């Protein structure tokens, strides 16, 4: 009897529409994040992560409306990420019904922002998103650095040290994405995950690279992840949340099945 490992579907949204395509066979509007989130909630997802990739500031009002609509229909925790840069952005999202916000670029540009955010709103709602890329050569000890702008822009920040710093500033959870694995479907970077999970005492969400159900289980069993995030394997109906949980349970992982 223990805390369940969480499965978190991630929705990428642009101007209020789900992008990267969700292909549920029987869904009315696969582009509607509210409909998609509600469906995931009913299907047994443990949380929803909503990632706003809307480019322009003006269109962000739509995002707030969408978050409000999701929160009115989805009764599991909702994390909102993308473009969170100010305390006011956080307040707006929490007031709209988000339970947590995920901070990425703004943390790199101004680490103190994470401290201020945690002090003001509590660590429980501050997730720091880390986009990590392996920079060590084959024969060197493993080393990862933080990249921004979708993995294109190096920052020179070493991942383990950075994550420790973010946790000491009050981050309550780490969303760890391997930029090497993202979109590859060959599985999480398990060494990265384990190294980060062992370095800090807050939960780690593994992200980037899931292609099958064993990858999810490996993330927990070998990568020491507390939660696993995936998008395409669920969106395209390759696997249901329940199938994923049943598989994880068959490998001895505690999951929420009720």
């Amino acid at each position, binding site marked *: *009897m*223990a*805390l*369940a*490992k*969480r499965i978190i579907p991630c929705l990428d949204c642009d101007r209020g529409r789900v992008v990267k395509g969700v292909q549920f066979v029987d869904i009315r509007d696969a582009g509607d994040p509210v409909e998609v989130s509600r469906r995931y*909630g009913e299907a047994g997802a*443990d949380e929803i992560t909503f990632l706003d990739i809307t480019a322009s500031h003006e269109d962000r009002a739509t995002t707030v409306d969408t978050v*409000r609509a999701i*929160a*009115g*229909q989805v*009764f*599991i*925790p909702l994390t909102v990420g993308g473009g969170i840069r100010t305390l006011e952005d956080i307040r707006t999202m*929490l*007031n*709209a*019904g*988000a*339970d947590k916000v995920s901070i990425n670029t703004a943390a790199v540009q101004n680490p103190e922002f994470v401290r201020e955010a945690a*002090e003001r*709103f*509590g*660590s*429980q*709602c501050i997730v720091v998103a880390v986009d990590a890329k392996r920079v060590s050569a084959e024969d060197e000890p493993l080393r990862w650095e933080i990249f921004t702008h979708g993995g294109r822009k190096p920052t020179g920040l070493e991942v383990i040290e950075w994550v420790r710093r973010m946790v000491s500033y009050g981050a*309550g*959870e780490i969303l760890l994405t391997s930029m090497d694995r993202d979109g590859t479907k060959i599985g999480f970077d398990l060494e990265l995950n384990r190294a980060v999970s062992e370095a800090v*005492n*807050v*939960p780690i969400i593994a992200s980037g690279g899931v292609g099958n159900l064993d990858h999810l289980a490996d993330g927990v069993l070998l990568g020491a992840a*507390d*939660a696993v995030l995936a998008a395409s394997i669920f969106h395209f109906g390759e696997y249901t949340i329940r199938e994923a949980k049943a598989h994880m349970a068959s490998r001895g992982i505690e999951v*929420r099945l*009720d």
Partner: protein
Amino acid sequence: MNQVAVIDYGMGNLHSVAKAIEHVGAELAAESGQATKVTITSDPAQIAAADRVVFPGVGAIRDCMAEINRLDVGAMVASAMKTKPVLAICVGMQALMAHSEENGGVDCLGLLSGRVKFFGEDLRDDNDARLKVPHMGWNRVTQTSDHPLWRGVPDNSRFYFVHSYYVTMDETDQVAGRSVYGREIVAAISAGNIFATQFHPEKSQNAGLTLLRNFLTWNGASD
């Protein structure tokens, strides 16, 4: 009309709990015809006039207690709990206790005789595996009383928790549910007209919605 007042003292996300109650209220209305109206408010008159009161809370206890004291929310809750059902959630439940270790030690409302303690830096499970803090995610709740709010909720259902401090109580007969995370913790309390949960029913899908629905039809201690 079933009037539910959600006490707003300026801390955190009240939208979720209000929406979840509206959601189950609409289900009840479809069955029984009785509508539910949820008001998010800090107005003592509105809270006094409500049929039921929800006392939520997220964030750090020092900031919460500062606002609770500034707005005299303690008096509103103390008065409400004498006459009608009150549901306290997460930091709302912790605020009912006498004292919390958080933020270097904070006096709370003392409406129930419990204390709030830190999980600790080196929390471990029975197999000596390290447990992370905050306790974040879905954990099982063992029901230790036969309370109307548990009706239709299978024993040992999972609810969503997120907290780094836990409640321990002297009056164990007030404990309505327990969970285990490195140690045994109080997950739910029943004391007269008060029902309190460390977990978030508004974020706990079916189990949580059932509990909220029960709250809307619960008559309080006399039930």
